[in-house]
């Protein structure tokens, strides 16, 4: 404790200028805000890209307002960078880096990350990677246009892609992003393991913290092979080596293995933080203990381990040995077991609750309801025999948007609306929060249900104009495409309501007390917003688990972790 006090004192005597407070800060909360706002800025770009290519699909050849004509290479570059941005520059920075940075020290009861300067470096490298990615869109030849999976030889040889500089800058940006998250991951795991408040045992750690920690471990364990793969791809692009060139003894399929060895655990890297955010919110607003905490936790460990064994289900028809498909069908279908178990746990948590449909709770419930659809449609693709047909159709696209949208968008809004009072000391408007909720979730379903259907009848992916395919350009199909596009535009417009609500509430919202939701976890025991050092009067101690809601024999229906028995 003595050491902690000295550090807190040191922080207090230190005069903060604008630069040291907002730009070169080592405070985990400020770094969390930097990650969050950078992620939201990138989300706006990724969303704009979706608008442009969906307009091209709905009205082929049209001059898209705010963009202009969409050529075939523009189209490919837009879809490529939409995917890349939404996963690497939105889902990861917001869900893992922003919430991880903000919540880990506050929820485990310490004053900051264990390596604050590494933390700052992590964000700086991340920012650099984002800048490089944005530059790559504007270089001669255009941005990288070989899909976010970057399969060689298309991604490796400029003679095939025509985007020599764009491909390389894209790859450099992605590699730097990985470096940023390796640095962040080290911090998250170390801090959660070493700096917990006295009394906080392993099973007293809130689920969201466990999930972010496990996600960081998954990321760090899976990204190595891809970094090796990326270096080989970089060499192929720049030096002219032939790691992926069959004419010179290389093999293009090697990249696919390295990419998906990372790429599939990556799904769980972003899924787990969203699951954790949802679990914590559901417990607070159902006033319930999380059903079978230990089972849930071990189930997540199981999911994480299994996620390393399923990667080649992305490659059933890629030219792998057909016998290998059986192994990956079995492992992929097996992963439905822990995920189904988690769904049952979430549903069981609601049982007997006292549920208030606040805005964060609506987002959390919507996450479960929508993610279920994403989960079950994955079974079609994990079953090798059915994937022969579904591979690279819009069924795949709709499936993973039903997983990633709940994760990256619904999960993020759940987290922001939940912890906004803690972040800024003020409430957001509940009314406008609900308007934004319905205005996002309803159009989301109207976008992707038609795409499930179009995929089922054979619409293949990454095609900029279906009029080249007579079977796919019947008038009613075009109507469905236009429906999806209109729904997307409606959904994007509703995001302005969120932005206005957020920025208005940040400065003018009703003041929030320390613990507006009457929640148990430690972040609610300090001021809103927490000062530098988090608990200036001394760090909290922990006496029980995070989910002691509605405990029998107590008047209050919550029992904060730091209150002595």
């Amino acid at each position, binding site marked *: 404790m003595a050491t902690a006090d000295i550090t807190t004192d040191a922080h207090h005597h230190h005069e903060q200028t604008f630069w040291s407070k907002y730009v070169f800060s080592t405070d985990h909360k400020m770094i969390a805000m930097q990650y969050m706002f950078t992620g939201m800025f990138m989300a706006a770009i990724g969303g704009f890209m979706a608008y442009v290519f969906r307009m091209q699909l709905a009205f082929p050849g049209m001059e898209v307002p705010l963009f202009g004509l969409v050529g*075939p*290479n523009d189209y*490919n570059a837009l879809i490529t960078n939409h995917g890349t941005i939404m996963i690497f520059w939105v889902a990861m920075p917001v869900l893992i880096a922003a919430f991880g940075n903000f919540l880990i020290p506050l929820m485990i009861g310490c004053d900051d990350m264990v390596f604050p300067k590494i933390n700052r470096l992590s964000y700086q490298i991340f920012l650099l990677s984002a800048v490089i990615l944005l530059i790559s869109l504007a270089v001669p030849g255009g941005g990288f246009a*070989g*899909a976010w999976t970057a399969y*060689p*030889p*298309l991604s490796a*040889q400029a003679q*095939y892609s025509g985007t020599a500089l764009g491909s390389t800058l894209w790859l450099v940006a992605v590699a730097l992003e990985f470096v940023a998250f390796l640095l962040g991951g080290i911090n998250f795991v170390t801090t959660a393991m070493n700096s917990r408040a006295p009394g906080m045992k392993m099973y007293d750690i809130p689920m969201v913290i466990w999930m972010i920690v496990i996600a960081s471990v998954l990321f760090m364990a899976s990204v190595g092979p891809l970094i090796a793969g990326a270096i080989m791809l970089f060499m192929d692009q720049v030096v002219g080596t032939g790691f992926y060139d069959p004419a010179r003894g290389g093999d*293009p*399929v090697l990249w696919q293995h390295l990419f998906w060895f990372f790429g599939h655990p990556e799904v769980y890297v972003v899924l787990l933080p969203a699951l954790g955010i949802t679990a914590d919110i559901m417990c607070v607003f159902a*006033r319930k*203990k999380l*059903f*079978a905490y*230990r*089972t849930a936790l071990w189930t997540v460990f199981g999911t994480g381990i299994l996620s390393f064994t399923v990667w080649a289900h992305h490659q059933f*028809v*890629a030219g792998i040995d057909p*016998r290998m*498909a059986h192994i990956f*069908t079995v492992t992929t*279908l097996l992963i439905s*077991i822990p995920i*189904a*178990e988690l*769904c049952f746990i979430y549903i*069981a*948590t*609601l*049982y*007997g*609750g*006292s*549920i208030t449909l606040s805005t964060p709770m609506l987002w959390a419930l919507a996450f*479960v*309801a929508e993610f*279920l659809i994403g989960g*079950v*449609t994955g*079974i*079609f693709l994990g*079953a090798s*025999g*059915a994937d*022969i*047909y579904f591979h*690279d159709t819009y069924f795949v696209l709709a499936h993973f948007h039903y997983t990633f949208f709940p994760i990256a968008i619904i999960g993020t809004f759940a987290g922001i609306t939940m912890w906004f009072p803690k972040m800024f000391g003020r409430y957001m408007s509940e009314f406008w929060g609900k308007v934004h909720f319905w205005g996002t979730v309803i159009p989301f379903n109207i976008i992707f249900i038609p795409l499930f259907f179009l995929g*089922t*009848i*054979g619409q*293949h*992916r*990454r095609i*900029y104009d279906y009029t*080249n*395919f007579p*079977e796919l350009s019947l008038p009613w199909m075009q109507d469905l495409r236009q429906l999806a596009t209109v729904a997307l535009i409606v959904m994007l417009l509703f995001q302005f309501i969120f932005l206005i609500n957020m920025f208005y509430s940040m400065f003018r919202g009703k003041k929030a007390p320390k613990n507006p939701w009457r929640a148990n976890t430690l972040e609610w025991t300090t001021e809103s917003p927490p000062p530098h050092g988090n608990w200036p009067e001394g760090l909290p101690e922990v006496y029980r688990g995070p989910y002691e809601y*509605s405990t029998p024999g107590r008047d209050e229906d919550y029992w904060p972790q730091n209150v002595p028995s």
Partner: protein
Amino acid sequence: MIERYLVAASSYAQDIDNLILLIAVLVGFWLVLCEVVFFYFIWRFRARDGHKAEYVSGENKAHKRWITIPHLLVLVCDVFIIYGAVRVWVNVKQTLPPPDATVRVIGQQWAWTFVHPGADGKLDTADDIAKIDELHVEVGKTYHYELSARDVLHSFSVPVFRLKQDAVPGRIIRGWFEPTKTGEYSVQCAEICGMGHGLMGARIMIETPGEHAAWVAGQKPLSLASAR
């Protein structure tokens, strides 16, 4: 299910459709069950004045049963799906029934080249017929395809066959199909292959034996064509 919108025109198309239907029924059951219970709970356990939530840890056996039993039932469904998937996969991708003829399928930016055996029924002879973006096959015959790519990855996709196979430069990948319905259908490239990926469509003509023989007879042999 799919056949209402897209003809099933190969010997295994119906098997794949049936597998998809099996999965749809099994996962559909769980999806509907979960969503119904989920929304029922949200309604049933809504906050009411003077009503406190129950304290359920979920750690004892009686409670855990509510998740372990469904979870075992999911496992049973998985076994059925794995069985169905493996059966279809073995038939489509892992076995090669003896062919009546072989066609060569070559992907390149951004067109398909199809080399048909001519009247002699053999490839690499003087009467081979090479066509761009046009594949002619005879209904009821078993075909092998020899799939290759000249530059980047492509994917040979024939939706009416429910068939898809990536073409990888440097490899020749062998597979099979047996057309069961005549007509003209779409052939796609299903793997992004650069700027012209959206243009890389071809047509497959499934012909009766008589039509096919007439088409073969009407073609100039490859060697002659290239000699000119």
